[in-house]
């Protein structure tokens, strides 16, 4: 394979990439390296520059400064088509050909990549079995999302770039999306996908990068990020009967526990980065409290953000369910 001197190759390299739209800085000297074979989650609130960065990778948008490489080859305007033979893309803000069937879409992708794949197998992989004959214009947004994911899988690409792949998917579809990502990673493909929701990323990613205001503010594993930021998770415990004050105090004395509250048979424990859930449960049980059930609520990306960036982005809400990343890419 081509690429770096040592035989090691980065699947994606962004080096000092900047992009301005008028007075708005979308990307500010952004540098990022994604290794071959890893699953990389690209996180950031809407408007942080995720889609602009991906548009630069795909040559949809030309950066004002900086260098971009995919699979070792530099991305330059009109020279990147051969590279995309080895890349599968689920772009953000795509549309489908309303009059063409799902199967036609896949045949088009197969022809375009000179691949040799059965469209029906691809439809099955994304859960669209039986829908291939219908015009894609009749599909729901979630089905269109699955269809374009299937198009991205054509030709067994070395690199998958998925921009907000879970948009419009129901929980079932989101699970299938994660399965596909795992299967592709197991095959040896590099997967790069963006999201504004941490939950979709942490389950499958080897590493995560967080972008804010056009700059990478952190690149690490999810656990590493959580630890480094000191962000907290919340443990909800259902107990048999009212817990005693002594039992609650025993939990409070554990290192890393920042808050303990009880309401009826529900105990809510807020945990710091380095305390184990089992320690909390053990403490309760040895104080004579019967643990019926428990559930962990992970900190949301927004909480992690706030923790990581010192609360600077409190006015941004990541839970608005739009896939619009600033609107500049439309």
């Amino acid at each position, binding site marked *: 394979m081509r690429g770096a001197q040592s035989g090691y190759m980065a699947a994606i390299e962004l080096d000092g990439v900047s992009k301005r739209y008028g007075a708005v800085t979308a990307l500010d000297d952004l540098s990022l390296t994604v290794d071959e074979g890893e699953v990389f989650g690209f996180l950031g609130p809407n408007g942080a520059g995720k889609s602009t960065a991906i548009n630069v990778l*795909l*040559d949809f948008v030309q950066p004002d400064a900086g260098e971009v490489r995919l699979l070792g080859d530099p991305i330059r305007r009109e020279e990147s088509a051969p590279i995309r033979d080895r890349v599968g893309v689920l772009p953000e803000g795509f549309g489908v050909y309303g009059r*063409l069937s799902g199967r*036609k879409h896949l045949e*088009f992708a197969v*022809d375009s990549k000179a691949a040799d794949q059965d469209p029906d197998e691809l439809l099955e992989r994304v859960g669209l079995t039986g829908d291939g004959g219908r015009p894609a214009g009749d599909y729901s947004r979630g089905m269109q999302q699955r269809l374009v994911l299937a198009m991205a899988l054509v030709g067994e690409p070395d690199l998958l770039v998925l921009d907000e792949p879970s948009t419009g998917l129901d929980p079932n579809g989101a699970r299938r999306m994660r399965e596909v990502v795992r299967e592709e990673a197991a095959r040896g493909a590099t997967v790069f996908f963006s999201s504004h929701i941490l939950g979709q990323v942490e389950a499958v990613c080897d590493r995560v990068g967080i972008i804010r205001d056009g700059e990478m503010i952190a690149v690490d594993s999810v656990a590493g990020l959580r630890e480094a930021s000191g962000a907290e998770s919340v443990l909800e415990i259902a107990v048999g009967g009212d817990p005693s004050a002594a039992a609650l105090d025993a939990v409070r004395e554990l290192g890393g526990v920042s808050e303990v509250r009880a309401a009826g048979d529900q105990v809510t424990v807020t945990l710091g980065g380095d305390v184990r859930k089992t320690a909390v449960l053990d403490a309760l049980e040895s104080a004579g409290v019967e643990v019926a059930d428990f559930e962990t609520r992970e900190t949301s990306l927004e909480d992690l953000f706030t923790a990581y960036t010192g609360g600077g982005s409190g006015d941004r809400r990541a839970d608005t369910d739009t896939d619009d990343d600033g609107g500049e890419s439309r």
Partner: protein
Amino acid sequence: MNSALVVARKDFEDAIRSRGVLLVSAVFVALFVFGAYFFADQVSQAAQASAQSGGQQGGDPVDSDAFLRTLSSGVTLLVPIVAVVASYSAVIGERASGTLKLLLSLPHSRRDVVLGKLLGRGGVVAVPAVGGLLLSMLVFPLTSVALAPLNYVAFTALTALLGLVFVALSVGISAAASTGRRAVVGSVGSYLFLLVFWNRAADPIVGRLSDALSWEPATTVKASLTLKLLNPLGAYSSLVAALSAESTALARASVTGGIQLSRRAGIVQQIYAQRLTEEGIPFYLTDAAVLAYLLVWLAVSAVVGYAVFRRADL
């Protein structure tokens, strides 16, 4: 398969599923086939009337060339409109709907997209036009009007080329435009400019140049004709006229007086033709040169559109 061809095939398959394209095909076939039928009917009625009135078989025998002369003015209006309507959204429409992101996510360059669109939309316009014209040839053996097949085929080819030129113009504008509205205004505006204003502007411009540079009358005639033949509509009309005109000079002179709907050989045209005949046809007024003007429109439109599209951010 070549990347542009993959895009073209997808585009064609998409377009033929739209009602507008089916409508246009029906209009073309109906116009050409029924046009030929009514023309032949009129001719045979006229012949009968003249036979009944006892007069000798007067005038030239009418063949299908006369029909083509009648048809060409209608074609000059209709085919470019169809081409513009079929093509103005070719690229900007995909940009606005987001399907362009699917295209460019696959291993297609922007050049492949422009070329593919040119071929795809070209097929959408040319296939029904050519089909309709070839179908209308079948009418003549059923009537008393003689068919001149070679000229008919040449007319069909020229009409297809006229369609392709306006497809290229609209696809180029569609690729260069940043909004759908600009693409519509640009395409329709270009067509109206070529149809209405170009020839009106030509004579005053040539007149002023002629005064300023003290041209010979023959030079003025050649300059005026050349300018009008640089208009693709003029080039098409003149090439069609050349199929059945007595001389190339007359065919070239036929563009004088605008892209007109009437076919009368005006006095000015006669004078121009006479002058050209005396002078000899210069190379830039030969059939080959006029054909080249059409091809230049096709190529330049596509290349300029691509050059702008190449630099654009999606």
